[in-house]
Structures are given as structure tokens and as C-alpha cells.
């Protein structure tokens, strides 16, 4: 079997089959469940429009996916180095490119697992409203570059910093900062600082596209500028990860 696929399966399998990986997925599921239960248990939230709820769910799934990607990305490089398993991997007769692509594939599998896990929740909260399918598609299209970008960023940071703990902390701080539009109200985001931050934040790009598709019923095709923005983010973080990992391999 191709070395890239083997490594990707190993990385992804760690998430889907190991106790630790299942524990992460369970934590994500519990967060989504709590959000769902809040929606039906709180009078104020239960009156939210379906489209608004699907939009919120899209934002939460993207944030959780990015969080999972940061954890998996940090673990795949900095974690392996601390556990002493990175050097034996580099000593195997596998090209460095294959190892790199395999680890990137593991990131994609982790996000795919998270996305599949989120689909029933999308259905549960949004099946009676508008644009549910378009919303799920836009999370797949725009959320994937954002989430994978954070995974690559965490891999790159993990390759550069000396300890897994400091790598994780640095990546988490960056993620918290980027995901702040989820916490800020629309009025704060409309301020000049908020608009400037939105203009360079890939998370905001994805959220704005979700808003346009799910709430404003715009077409997914019309979100191409947002999509391109998230692809630029993916390209930059991928380059950072490749460059940083090559330094480790040397």
C-alpha cells in the first residue's frame, strides 16, 4: 500500500479507533449535544429561527473542527517527537514527502470524522428550516480549508517549538483569537477594528459565507471570494507546515 495512505490511515485511525481519539470525538459530540439541548431547554434560544440555529451550528462545528485539528496537528509532530516516535519514523525507508503528505492526510481524516459526526446535529436542529443542505455544503467547502489550515499551522508550530505543551498553547491562542467572531456580537464586528480584523481572518471569511448562504439564502457560487480567501489561508499554512517540517527532517 502507498506509504502516504498508510501514514494517513495510521494518523486517522488513531483518532477513530484509539481510546484517546474516541475520547476527543466524544468531547466534541458532548459539546454539540449541550448546544442542541440548550436550544430546546431555553425558552429564549428555542425561539431562534432555524436558519440562525444552523448558522450557529456551522460556526461551532468549524471551531470544534479547528480545535481538533490543532490538537491532532500538534500531536502528530510535537507529540511524536516527545514520545520519541518521530525519529524511528524518519529512519524508515519512506520518503520525507510521503511522511509529510501522510500526516496531512491524517488531518483531513480527522476533520472528515468530525464533519460526519456533526451531520446528525445539523439535521436535528435545522431540518424544519431553510437552506439546511446548502449550509452543510458550505461548512464542508469553506470550513475544510479553515480547519485544515489550523491543523497545518499547529503542525508547523509543533515542528518549530521545543515542547508539545508550548506548541499546543501557542496554536490554541491563535485559534482563540481567530475564532473570536463567534463570540463577538454583530455590532462589535461592525466597528472599524472589527471590520479590519474580519478582513484578514479566515474564520470570519467562513462565517460570513455561512451567514450569506444559510440566513440570506444566497447561492454557494456567490461565495467564491470567501472561498478563495480561505484557500489562501490553507495555502499559506500548508507552506508554513511543509517548510517547518522539512527543517525537522533535515
Amino acid at each position, binding site marked *: 500500500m502507498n506509504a502516504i495512505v498508510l501514514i494517513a490511515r495510521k494518523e486517522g485511525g488513531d483518532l477513530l*479507533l*484509539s*481510546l484517546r481519539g*474516541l*475520547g476527543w*470525538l*466524544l468531547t466534541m*459530540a*458532548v459539546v*454539540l*449535544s*449541550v448546544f*442542541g*439541548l440548550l*436550544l*430546546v431547554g431555553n*425558552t429564549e434560544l*428555542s*425561539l*431562534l*429561527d*432555524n436558519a440562525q*440555529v444552523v448558522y450557529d451550528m456551522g460556526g461551532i462545528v468549524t471551531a470544534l473542527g479547528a480545535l481538533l485539528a490543532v490538537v491532532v496537528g500538534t500531536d502528530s509532530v510535537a507529540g511524536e517527537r516527545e514520545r520519541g516516535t518521530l525519529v524511528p519514523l524518519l529512519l524508515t525507508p519512506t520518503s520525507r514527502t510521503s511522511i509529510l503528505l501522510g500526516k496531512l492526510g491524517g488531518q483531513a481524516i480527522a476533520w472528515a470524522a468530525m464533519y460526519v*459526526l456533526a451531520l*446528525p*446535529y445539523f*439535521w*436535528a*436542529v435545522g*431540518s*424544519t*428550516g*431553510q437552506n439546511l443542505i446548502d449550509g452543510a455544503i458550505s461548512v464542508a467547502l469553506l470550513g475544510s480549508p479553515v480547519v485544515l489550515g489550523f491543523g497545518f499551522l499547529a503542525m508547523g508550530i509543533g515542528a518549530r517549538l521545543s515542547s508539545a505543551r508550548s506548541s499546543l498553547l501557542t496554536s490554541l491562542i491563535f485559534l482563540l483569537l481567530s475564532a473570536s467572531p463567534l463570540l463577538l456580537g454583530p455590532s462589535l464586528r461592525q466597528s472599524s477594528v472589527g471590520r479590519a480584523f474580519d478582513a484578514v481572518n479566515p474564520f470570519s471569511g467562513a462565517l460570513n459565507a455561512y451567514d450569506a448562504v444559510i440566513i440570506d439564502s444566497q447561492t454557494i457560487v456567490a461565495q467564491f471570494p470567501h472561498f478563495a480567501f480561505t484557500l489562501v489561508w490553507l495555502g499559506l499554512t500548508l507552506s508554513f507546515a511543509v517548510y517547518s517540517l522539512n527543517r525537522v527532517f533535515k
Partner: protein
Amino acid sequence: MTLRTFLLSIALFVASASAWAEPLSVNLSATPGNPASPQMGDHLNFHTIIRNDGPTPVDGLIAWISLVQIDKGKEQPVDLEDWSAHKAVTAPQLAPGTSLETDWPMRLIQAGTYRVVVSAVSRNGPNLTPSTFVDFKVRQKPVVESQRVLPVAVGIPIVLCGLMLWRRRRS
């Protein structure tokens, strides 16, 4: 003589009745800014003017808002728990010729046709004084349905817990 006695009795009765008559009047109206076709989740506001039209002060005034659903087959009083936090107003005294104006904000929780009324009583007044009715209709809005959320929100973590147990037994 008999006619004079009768007229005197009538006069005494009218005089005593007017002495006991409730001098309050309650005027209820929907605020002009309310949405024309409200739906679940919208806010409505009602306004009352409670006036003392009598010659003496009214002590211990209490006014409260009531809501009833008047859809055919669903006639029932509505518990205002989730609808409004402003359910009553009190005043220690309302002087003759003065009025008490109150706003009654309301959050629309359920679809249906409703009738709202504000009632007022005073400490010594013998009768309850109701306002005129204001009717309104609340449109249905697609919101989250609990019967879909609960199985998913409870089921998926249980499935994952099961997977973890299975994995733990195998290892």
C-alpha cells in the same frame, strides 16, 4: 304618597349605588410600533391608562395583565411565565382625576390567536374593573423541534461511549 315613597326609594338606591361604584377606568391599547403581523419570538407592547374618575382617592390600586388563547378548540388561559416579566403594577394611591400609565411588554412564545385584558382593583373598591380587549394573532415560525434534537443529542454520545467500551475490551 305611594309614588313619592317609591321615587324616594329609587333615589336612595341610585345614590348608594353611585357611592359604591368603582371610579376606575382602564383603557388598553396596542402600541403603534407593534409588528402588523407578529410571529413567534417577536415582541409586542401594550399600553394602559388607568384613570380615577371618582371624587375620592383610590387606595391600594393593583392592575394585572391576563392572556387567553381563543382559537377554536384550544380556548385556555395562558401562563405568562415565559411571555412577560411585567405582569402587574401597583400604586399606593390614585388621586381623583389622575391616571396611571403603564407599558406591558410581551414576548410571543406560541402561535395562535390571543386576547389580552388588563384588570384593576383597589383596596376598598367592590368591583373589578376590566379594560377593553385587544386581540392579536401570532404566526408560526420554524424553530427547533425537541423531538428531533433529543435523540441525536443523547444518542450520539451514548454510541461513542459504547465504541470506547468496545475498544477498551478489545485492547
